């Protein structure tokens, strides 16, 4: 069934691109927020911050379709490239830009005292980030990250442009075969809705678990 295959690809792309996006996003967010929070950023940090800003502007400023096309037809031109890998890479890099700004807002909203407490105990920058800042920032921006993943899920629908069959494409194929305008479209919409509802539910559970130590206020 087209739908099953398409759904499988949609899920694979979304999940791996999301993971890549989170990894990239966290790194970028750390760079950007370290820069913004420091009085007098060093030269290395300033260069990194500049690169990060260009990345954010270009990636968020151009249509993801164009990015996917450039990666697939412009960069990985070898006929042997594994299509799904390129797509995951393109979406991961795209998503990373959005995740970065989201996570940055989570980091910026944390009290600077958290970092200071970590550093004052003798933890280095990296230990402080991974043990203290990131877990809290992640928890704080989980709802916004949810938004981002929902967007990502639906954005993967453009991968038909590089010949990948995803859920939307599966619907299009059925539309072209049956000449039925609405039904395949609605069917696909319902599947997206179900995925989103599962995702929202999972995120809600995760959020509650992460917040278990918190006082209800």
């Amino acid at each position: 069934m087209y739908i099953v295959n398409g759904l499988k690809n949609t899920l694979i792309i979304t999940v791996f691109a999301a993971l890549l996006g989170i990894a990239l996003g966290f790194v970028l967010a750390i760079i950007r927020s370290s820069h913004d929070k420091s009085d007098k950023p060093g030269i290395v940090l300033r260069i990194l911050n500049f690169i990060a800003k260009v990345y954010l502007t270009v990636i968020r400023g151009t249509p993801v379709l164009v990015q996917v096309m450039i990666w697939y037809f412009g960069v990985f031109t070898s006929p042997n490239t594994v299509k799904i890998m390129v797509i995951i890479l393109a979406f991961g890099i795209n998503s990373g830009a959005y995740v970065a700004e989201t996570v940055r807002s989570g980091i910026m909203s944390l009290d600077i005292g958290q970092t200071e407490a970590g550093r004052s105990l003798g933890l280095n920058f990296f230990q402080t980030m991974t043990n203290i800042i990131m877990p809290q920032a992640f928890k704080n921006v989980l709802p916004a990250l949810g938004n981002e993943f929902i967007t990502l899920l639906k954005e993967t629908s453009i991968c038909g442009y590089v010949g990948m069959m995803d859920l939307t494409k599966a619907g299009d194929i059925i539309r072209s075969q049956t000449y039925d305008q609405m039904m395949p479209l609605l069917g696909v919409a319902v599947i997206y809705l179900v995925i989103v509802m599962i995702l929202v539910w999972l995120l809600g559970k995760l959020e509650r678990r992460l917040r278990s130590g918190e006082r209800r206020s």
Partner: protein
Amino acid sequence: ACGSEPKSDAAAGSSSSEASGAVTGMDDLPGKKIGVQTGTTGDIYATDYEGDEAGTVVERYNKGVDAVMSLKQGKIDCVIIDNEPAKVFVSENDDLKILDEPFAEEEYAICVDKSNSELKDKINQALTDLKADGTLDEIIGHWIGDSADQKSYESAADADHSNGTLVMATNAEFPPYESLDGENVVGIDADIARAIADKLGMDLRIDNMEFDSIIMAVTSGKADIGVAGMTVTEDRLENVDFTDTYAKAKQVIIVKK
């Protein structure tokens, strides 16, 4: 699905008709709302009417099926579309009909990258052979006409595929030229490409993608040929090469009864 000669000069027939009346032929088009599918030959020729003094509007839809829905709801006056899908739309919708007068005739060709004239020549040779030995007509006969049995062309059992793989880019949403049957792309274009590959002693691999990506696949080297009911135009020749034509088709006008 995409561009040769309109049957009559588009701009010339634009004087007489009444903007509000029904479309009964090409002469009625000026002043109407015309629906087309983006990038089809119908789109390209309808564009000649756009912005004329009669106020013709061309609405370009990503999918033909959506243009047809707009027509059914009366949001547009007619749809110009390839003959084959048009037949299916009309058979499934009692309130639609195809005008007898075709809008344009067109001929399909295979596109190859400009740097690859060696391949183009080989394909032209193969096409000439296939036309000569009747394979081409036989393939088309399996998919179009009264005797269509939707049977795919099969390579001969002893076919030689030692010259590597020929990669074909297409958009399998355009039956009977190409559509999906399970995992496989089937249809006239697929069969012809396979027949050509056999002639070249190559394996065929079909990569199904969005129509808008096919040229890019060919120019970037991801695919060797693009076969998707493409029509040759001057503008397009600036950017890609086309082989000789392999099939004839026409664009027709659908209207509400």
